[in-house]
């Protein structure tokens, strides 16, 4: 039986934290709640080890929701309706699209080619979504590429920018301010309200980056 801890998260949500051994249980709990859609459920969301269950206090007592979730959390892993997917993301590692590529490679004492090889060699796992709609925190960045984010965010990061910060990499789906080091750009759409779900990536998915030429990137960009 997985070990977990349930606590209040304000007055209309409960937080369930699973221990490190129960990997995948938090997303699976959130998913099974969303699938069953009890009338009191407002939303259920998870990162790797923490699920948050948002409820309508007018439709359920806290004691009731507590025991429902305790039962669900202690049950064995459910077969998830959404199977973890593998995505290959074509990205253009070119300094005209990625302002930090060359300075970062120089700082790390490697060539841009070596930096690109490292970033494209790794297999990343979606740890959580947040920051912006469709933004996924990808774990699995090679240790040689782990660099702190900028102390002051850039006022404007282009949509599709691939960034790295700390032990993570990720793609900005929307133009926004941002403090990650930008090493590539992709034309893949990571968020579209017309899709169900609107985000391309889900927690637990696997992501790889594939280096494409500037010519290839412009062609995909033009087709969109």
């Amino acid at each position, binding site marked *: 039986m997985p070990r977990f801890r349930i606590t209040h998260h304000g007055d209309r949500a409960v937080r369930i934290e699973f221990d490190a051994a129960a990997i995948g249980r938090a997303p699976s709990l959130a998913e099974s709640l969303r699938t069953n859609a009890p009338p009191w459920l407002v939303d259920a969301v998870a990162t790797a080890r923490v699920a948050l269950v948002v409820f309508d206090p007018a439709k359920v007592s806290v004691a009731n929701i507590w025991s429902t979730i305790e039962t669900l959390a202690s049950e064995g892993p459910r077969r998830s309706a959404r199977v973890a997917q593998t995505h290959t993301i074509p990205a253009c590692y070119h300094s005209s699209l990625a302002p930090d590529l060359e300075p970062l490679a120089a700082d790390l004492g490697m060539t841009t080619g070596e930096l690109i090889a490292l970033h494209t060699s790794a297999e990343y796992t979606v740890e959580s979504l947040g920051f912006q*709609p469709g933004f996924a925190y990808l774990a699995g960045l090679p240790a040689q590429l782990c660099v702190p984010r900028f102390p002051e965010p850039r006022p404007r990061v282009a949509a599709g920018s691939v960034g790295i910060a700390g032990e993570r990499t990720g793609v900005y789906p929307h133009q926004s301010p941002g403090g990650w080091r930008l090493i590539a750009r992709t034309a893949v759409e990571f968020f579209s309200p017309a899709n169900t779900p609107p985000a391309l990536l889900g927690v637990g998915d696997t992501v790889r980056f594939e280096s494409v030429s500037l010519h290839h990137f412009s062609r995909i960009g033009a087709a969109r």
Partner: protein
Amino acid sequence: MSILRVIDPGLSTTVQDGGRNGHMTSGVPVGGAADVLSLRIGNRLLAQPDECAALEITLVGGIYETTQPTTICLAGATATDVTIEGTSTSRAVPVWTPTPFAPGERLGIGPLVDGARVYLCIAGGIATPLVLDSRSTHAGSQLGVPGRTLQAGDELALSTPATDAHCHRLSAQTAAGIESHLARRTLRVLPLAHHEHFSAIADDQLFLRTFTISDLSDRTGTRLDGPKVPSPPKLEVSEPALPGVIQIPPAGRPIILGPDGPTTGGYPMPYAVITADLPALAQRRPRDPIRFERTTPERAREEALRVQTLLDAVASPEPS
């Protein structure tokens, strides 16, 4: 079709309704009216469903026109100099009061004085297209239509109001109850799981000192100036968080997540503001002082019921 025309959008005006639930897993914030109590009251006074889309006007009003005769109701903060000007007449528009508004007239709303947000509710509601089940604007990802703060020249479609809708009046007693609730400067909070990582000094700072609302606050978060709250070392990874959660970044300046805030928080979060007090938080202006007070889940529940009683004293809800 009837249209609301934006002549001058004020400082930061967006379309907001009750928000979009069920998409946090895609990183989509709930959004919706920051002061959802005022939105609901404005709509109830117009005898329409609580969460009809309205304009959320922040700090400075603006100028608006309509193409069909309609009724409007301002709900929330009081603005200076709110008038409807016709070709020959001009009349004042008090807050919480359904008021007829006709083509050829101009609704002018001056700066807000006793709060940060006022809702311009319109009979029938704003009828821009639903995006992910809501008309709310999330400017950060261009969600909603037009998906940004309004600009001069924008035209917003309006729904045709129910012909049998009879507007309501707010009694002086109910108005006083609502205004005193929205004027709160002491926000009640509940402890979160991360609280155990904070020192007693953090609690002393949070509960014994006064903070002020920073000029940098917006719909993504309310930033607080004032005493620094010692933050524990950074926790492992980010995790889901709801609007109202107080985050403490390493520099010790608290940020209260707003309706458009990120759906996950990477900083330690010791407390969350209770749902009943979020409308009052949304009404605090830059440089307003605020304080925190620790409460219990039972008390939070009683406060939620008290707010519901206030709302039901306005009028019975209309089915959506």
